[in-house]
């Protein structure tokens, strides 16, 4: 086993990860003054490239009772669990043909996502994934969501719940998998900005 080794973002150091886990509220780029942490953080196994598949430990395996983790992370994990429950409710409703119930679960999920986004300072991957799901639901409205879209949302939220310090490279993969189901993961108005940035647009 080895210490925390992000696959993409070299600015996340062990001390920064410790600071994030202990809830000091520090961003990735400010590791030097991080408080000491009582034990090594073991996240990825030897030779890991940061993928969530294979020998990596999920946060619940690392901290089964959530002892020693900070308030922000605890809050994020709690809210993500609620969000996943609401997706599960939607899956159940879809299976029973209850489209109103599924839509209601979606509304309840939509309410929780901005709260999770408030703790995005924990990790950019968390912020990016929650933003993508939130944008997807906003753009989808008022159309119903499909089973494949619900599944993709569940996978994204479950992964970031299990691996809140997921690499950004893995976050890109998860967001791409949301788009593959036809979801538009960009905030409202994004298209206008990117039209401005078109090839001929900038002086």
């Amino acid at each position: 086993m080895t210490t925390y080794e992000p696959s993409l973002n070299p600015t996340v150091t062990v001390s920064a990860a410790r600071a994030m886990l202990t809830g000091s509220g520090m961003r990735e780029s400010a590791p030097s003054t991080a408080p000491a942490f009582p034990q090594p953080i073991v996240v990825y196994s030897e030779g890991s490239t940061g993928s969530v598949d294979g020998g990596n430990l999920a946060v619940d395996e690392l901290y089964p009772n959530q002892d020693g983790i900070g308030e922000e992370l605890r809050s994020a994990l709690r809210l993500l669990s609620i969000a996943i429950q609401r997706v599960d409710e939607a899956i159940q409703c879809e299976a029973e043909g209850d489209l109103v119930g599924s839509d209601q679960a979606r509304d309840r999920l939509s309410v929780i996502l901005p709260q999770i986004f408030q703790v995005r300072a924990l990790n950019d991957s968390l912020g990016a994934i929650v933003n993508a799901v939130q944008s997807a639901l906003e753009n989808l409205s008022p159309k119903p969501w499909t089973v494949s879209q619900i599944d993709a949302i569940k996978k994204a939220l479950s992964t970031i719940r299990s691996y809140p310090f997921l690499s950004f490279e893995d976050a890109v993969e998860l967001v791409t998998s949301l788009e593959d189901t036809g979801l538009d993961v960009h905030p409202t108005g994004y298209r206008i900005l990117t039209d401005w940035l078109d090839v001929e647009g900038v002086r």
Partner: protein
Amino acid sequence: MSKAFVDTTVLTDALLKTGDVSKRAISAIRGFDYSETPVYALKEFAGGPLRYWIWAHNKLVKTRSLSKALLEISALVRTPQKYAPSSMLEALSIAIRGKPPSAGADDILADRYAYAIRIDILAAWKRRRKLTTSVTYPIACYEESPPELDGDGLFALKIPCSRERQCALRAHLVRQNTGLQKIRDVLLGQSNKPENAKRLRVVKELIRNPKRDIDWKQCRHLGDAVFAVLAPPDCVILTTNLKDHLPLAEALGKTARLPG
């Protein structure tokens, strides 16, 4: 067998644009049996659209305010014609419209946009060489380096051309001197457009002095002419800029078409 030679506009639509624009570009490329991206398109993509996306990302991260970032961006960007009457304020209102109160704060919106752009930049970079069947016409002086964040959360704004090395594109082009002469003749009739005037100057220079090096600026000015010259005769040039590409392609007995 149908073959496509993908230009920078279609590459950009496929890699960076959202929704139907992206789908149309990808679907058009996949509609051909074979497709290729010249490295020159990757170079233009990295030095143009991708660089502008990075610039916008950095504005959002730096200002932590969507409204401030948009104001700073609008100072350097020509508003597309379709948004001309309403411009900035309409864009802002559309951007903010429909947000739940908890998600309406300017700094939150800035972060949301920044995350979305960052995802798009990295996803585009990852897919840039996988979009077509092959990537052709390597250019040794073009130094590809992935976009990476610095300690402040900003991407480096790199110019992808080496200033020190000689432009390697020249060698590809001067082999086709007859083609260059035909391109020159077309451009002579279109030189009222500033970018065509610059292009014409470089093409003339390549015809006159095929052994003389061109610099990175001249390489950039060549633009559409590169695609017309380098596209294999049995390939269709796939572009959203048909107005500029088609006359050049037709002068060389080639063709160009829009995606979709």
